[in-house]
């Protein structure tokens, strides 16, 4: 018993007091800032592994970006990634950051379904479905519940059964072989329910976009409530995105 107390004492305080303002340690590639400088745009487009960059004006689609940083290494005065991890939105187009943009990536509060805040504002239970996810987003979603991030403090929790859930969080590009289980899981979740896409693979297919092994037709059927970019998503990106969806976020 005494040994356990000693161990506990040695841990010190591990939880992050304010998840909305804490700074990520070290380097982080979050929201990009793109200048209006002229560069060889063909070269720029060509170096991106996931076709996340387009031109007129130069822009990066965070729903496709794998955050490899390659573009910013090649053209540092054109593209820089900031440490801003609040890059989720409920509007797909808002994930596209254009040259000259200085604003944040935000949710459109008007477009959030009214019942979400009302019903889930105090407690949100989520069922995660890995649909050919590579286990990186899964690890990070698990981390949201650990002693550091402790997302449970907001009443947000991952649950074992879709029947106990208020919505599903999809990771991975959605394989043909997972299409049916995903549908069954969604159908088993009681309404009203939300859908969150976590990670580049889920949002756009990522590097797997266009693979014959995928079946993304599920996404055509239902409105998506939240897109959380990242490869993998950072726990802070996920937590802040969900808080904004629930009308709890600070900017």
């Amino acid at each position: 018993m005494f040994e356990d107390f000693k161990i506990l004492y040695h841990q010190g305080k591990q939880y992050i007091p304010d998840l909305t303002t804490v700074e990520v340690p070290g380097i982080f590639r979050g929201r990009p800032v793109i200048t209006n400088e002229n560069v060889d745009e063909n070269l720029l487009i060509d170096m991106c592994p996931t076709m996340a960059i387009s031109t007129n004006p130069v822009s990066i689609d965070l729903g496709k970006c794998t955050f490899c940083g390659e573009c910013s290494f090649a053209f540092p005065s054109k593209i820089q990634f900031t440490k801003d991890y609040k890059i989720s939105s409920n509007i797909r187009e808002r994930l596209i950051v254009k040259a000259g943009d200085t604003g944040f990536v935000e949710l459109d509060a008007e477009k959030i379904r009214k019942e979400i805040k009302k019903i889930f504002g105090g407690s949100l239970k989520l069922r995660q479905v890995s649909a050919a996810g590579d286990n990186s987003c899964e690890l990070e979603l698990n981390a949201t519940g650990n002693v550091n991030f402790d997302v449970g403090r907001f009443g947000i929790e991952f649950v074992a059964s879709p029947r106990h859930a208020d919505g599903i969080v999809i990771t991975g590009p959605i394989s043909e072989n997972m299409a049916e289980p995903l549908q069954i899981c969604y159908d088993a979740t009681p309404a009203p329910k939300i859908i969150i896409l976590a990670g580049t693979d889920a949002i756009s297919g990522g590097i797997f976009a266009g693979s014959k092994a995928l079946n993304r037709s599920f996404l055509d059927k239902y409105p998506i409530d939240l897109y959380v970019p990242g490869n993998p998503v950072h726990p802070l990106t996920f937590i802040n995105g969900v808080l904004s969806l629930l009308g709890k976020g600070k900017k």
Partner: protein
Amino acid sequence: MNYSVLKNNQRVQFASIPVIAYESFIETISGMLEDKNNHCVNFFGFPSDNKVKLICCIASDTESCIHVTSTNVETGSSLPSATAHNLSFEKFEREIHENFGIKYTDHPWLKPVRYPFYRNDKSQNISNYPFYSIESEELHEVGVGPIHAGIIEPGHFRFLCNGEQILHLEIQLGYQHRGIEPLFIEKKKLNERVTLAENIAGDTVVGHTTAFTNLWESLCDYTPTPDLKFNRTLALEHERIAIHTGDLSAICTDIAYQLGSSVYGRLRTPVINYFQKWCGNRLAKSLIRPGKTNFPFTKELAKEWFKTFEDYDPDFQEMSKRLFDLPSALARLERTGVVSAETATNIGMVGMAARASGLLRDIRQTHPHDFYQEIGYDPVLQTTGDVYARINIRMEEIIESMDYMVDLINHMPDPARKHPAMSAPIPDSFVVSLVEGWRGEICHTAITDDKGDLLIYKIKDPSYHNWLALALAVRNNDISDFPICNKSFGLSYCGHDL
């Protein structure tokens, strides 16, 4: 000679690999496995001139080389199997059957592997998998998955139980199939391919990306500067520490030991945050690249590493001492889910799980690449093959990896001022790249055509060998012990399904 002999990452002319008659092929490969120091690292087929070319790569652990041989067979033909001679070929031949319709007449278990979109028989569907079942009033079946209770990847487990006791477990995979191998061929840019490698298994980013990178550099006859090799070795050991620490937390969760779960869980955070400081990604995506690095290892990073582990080490040691002294924890771990050394050898187990059963399978020792020769690597071996051994070995390996990293960093090479440019892959080449990831042996194999384009890219995750070990380990155990058995192997679904 019936086979070619090559080293890990040695490029040879593809045309130089002998093509022999099917009968001698089976004889050669199963003959090699009679020597217990040999094991099959990859065995696959691909279409070639209206036939199927089969290639088998058998590694010799004592001679640090890989024996490669090949044969041509007709699509859809009926053939005797290599599995009839040696069980460790079973999954490889199932895959060849699934992809090309080759009927092995004496294969005991010719079932689907992953239901790829390019499977030979499209009437086979993941929802109608032919489970083994026994008609009996006393037995019952328990189906779990594909979606599991936690935040983990999908796969289906079907148990045949007598009361609480598991008689048989069948593991059905394929849900995670993303078609990665064909994507390696379709995508032409190096940046796309390295991104693919990085996303094979997100918990083994460094392992798979290093396998790809070493292979690619060999295809291009490119010699990386010492700093690049250093980075890869360092990152591999760091990844091992990170994931092992997280797994120790997870096993504590599964035995309802809250203190261990929280402490190991929080200890993982600074380790993965260190990757963040190094390359901007907690799981090291973007760190390893062929012929270059965007994130050189600097003196500041070295200092930061020492600081991180100065804090980590005492807390880790203290927690581990407590866990491995705790009777209530040990009672759950010891003698649970045993895999004997004999079974491990028979089914061709690899990696950490094999070493926990007393079988020395470790690429770092037997086929060293990058800086492993310099490390003077000494593998940790256990003998009991139970959950305890597979958990304890993680703790021991963490301590050992920390020592290696200290040693590596103390002898860190200067960053190269400039990395030489890379040319395109050399036509008609064949390379096998082996890397010891935290789970075990990763094998990537590539062949280029007469123009130097990729013809075949073949990936084998250690999980490919080891899923069967889990199924065998749980026999005669209580079904309530399945979660800890499963966690003790910590296998990859996406790495298997590709």
